[in-house]
């Protein structure tokens, strides 16, 4: 049974079709990434899955509960971390956690030890009784994730979990997320516009652009699909090597460039040794050899025809900016 099943989910805002017949399924225990630029429909999809927004058409089931007819059961079985912080800064971390537990009807006897355990898990135990306003961005995120897990959801939604964090904190958070997924067996669905994040964390990625899913698979398969790896080879006798390389079974194509031979092949790392051996058999010296593996960036470009772009600021983005300035 998939943890999340989405079928032709569609959302219109007036004339604008924000989410267009999106279909996917997430197996239990996976980390699934919705990858796309701002305004692609990622957050809208999450909002519908968390029953905050009603779909225009189509349907979705979370833990087998219908988002249209069983919103309360859906809400009880998921945890959410929003793109915008939703902590109360005037309260302590523990009070925030406690409030959450009460809202989700977690009995007091369970609540207290569970809060301790989760704070431990995200490494905030020693700061549990500090006000959230004294927390750094990364700590706030960790607290929000811990809070989202308090009522033991089977699925955790993370909307741009590392947005606005510095690279080091981001790395840290990634290991926390991976650990949670492994140790707690929580299915995680996250939205991101960071390629690296999707690549590092997700066992499956759906690329979403203008409300449509344009490709969906494991990151490796997606990269394979766009035509494999590229090897740039420079030798002491390129003209002679070109023919030999073209005869290799693994090679899809090889062509002459003014700075060497460009070889296209799948799983280049496995054939690098073969290339070098081939050269030495022919008595040709290898001047340089570089393997370029396609990144999700290349994948995104391949499927959408453009690089991941920043959309112009909406009213909400402006408010977000104002808030950041205000807090400074």
């Amino acid at each position: 049974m998939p943890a999340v099943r989405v079928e032709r989910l569609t959302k219109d805002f007036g004339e604008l079709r924000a989410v267009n017949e999106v279909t996917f399924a997430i197996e239990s225990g996976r980390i699934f990434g919705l990858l796309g630029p701002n305004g692609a429909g990622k957050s809208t999809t999450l909002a519908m899955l968390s029953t905050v927004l009603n779909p225009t058409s189509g349907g979705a089931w979370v833990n087998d509960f219908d988002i249209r007819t069983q919103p309360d059961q859906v809400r009880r079985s998921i945890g959410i971390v929003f793109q915008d912080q939703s902590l109360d800064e005037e309260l302590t971390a523990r009070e925030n956690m406690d409030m959450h537990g009460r809202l989700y009807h977690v009995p007091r006897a369970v609540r207290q030890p569970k809060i301790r355990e989760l704070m431990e898990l995200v490494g905030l135990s020693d700061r549990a009784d500090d006000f959230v306003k004294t927390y750094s961005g990364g700590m706030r995120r960790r607290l929000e994730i811990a809070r989202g897990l308090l009522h033991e959801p089977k699925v955790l939604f993370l909307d741009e979990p590392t947005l606005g964090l510095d690279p080091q904190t981001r790395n840290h958070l990634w290991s926390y997320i991976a650990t949670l997924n492994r140790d707690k067996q929580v299915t995680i669905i996250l939205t991101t516009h960071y390629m690296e994040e999707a690549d590092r964390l997700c066992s499956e990625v759906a690329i979403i652009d203008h409300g449509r899913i344009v490709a969906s698979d494991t990151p490796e398969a997606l990269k394979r699909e766009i035509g494999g790896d590229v090897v740039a080879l420079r030798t002491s006798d390129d003209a002679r090597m070109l023919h030999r390389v073209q005869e290799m079974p693994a090679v899809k194509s090889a062509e002459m460039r003014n700075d060497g031979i460009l070889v296209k092949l799948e799983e280049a790392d496995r054939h690098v040794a073969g290339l070098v051996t081939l050269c030495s058999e022919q008595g040709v010296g290898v001047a340089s050899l570089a393997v370029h593996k396609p990144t999700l960036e290349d994948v995104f470009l391949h499927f959408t025809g453009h690089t991941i772009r920043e959309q112009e600021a909406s009213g909400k983005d402006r408010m977000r900016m104002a808030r950041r300035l205000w807090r400074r």
Partner: protein
Amino acid sequence: MDIVYTIWMRNVKRYLRSKPRIIGSLGFPLFFLVILGFGLNSVVKGPHMGRGYVAFVVPGIVSMSVLFTSMFSGIQIIWDKQFGFLKETLVAPVSRLEIMLGQTFGGATSALIQGFLILVISLFLGVRPASALGVVLALGFMVLVGITFTALGIAIASRLDDMQGFQLIMNFVIFPIFGLSGALFPIDGLPAAMRWLTLIDPLTYGVEGIRYGLTGAAQIPPLVSLGVLGGFAVVMVTLGARLFRGVQI
């Protein structure tokens, strides 16, 4: 009930911890009290001002303080629903009504404390309430005013997406409600048209009720004030709950 209590508790904790805000929002009413009260004390004489204008205006300033605090705590959810804890409550498996009631009672509680502080300060300015029972009655009216206007604030905030309309609300809702309420002047000396306006202003009944409690005299019978203000409270809470249910995040 547990949820209402949780949200209420959160609001009260926040309020009590924001000492600068408490002190800051005492400034404006205090300014009014001192400038108007003492400035006009010797000039203004009226049929209802047997104990001087200061004594007359204290209930008005208390009402103002309650009005402002409750409206602000209601309207502040514009911010809170998008960038704050409220968003977390809106996706929890709890009903919107519980959240709305928790917010309303929370706002009303802060407003009550704020109004009570003005009352205490006025003691030091030499204005003695008529009786202890009267003070209790006044506090009761303050609670009703607090509930009415926090709910109105929530109703307005439910329909707004950003703070741009805030100035508009300030100038065309809060100030008129305050100005027309008879907080600063006796209402029966007004021209007919304006008197009519004061009588549809919920705060008028709050001011009159609090004034009756503190000074022992009012131009509207206290039971009428209680009934009308109670009615307004029910209407506003219903309206607020209805609009709050439609909030999209």
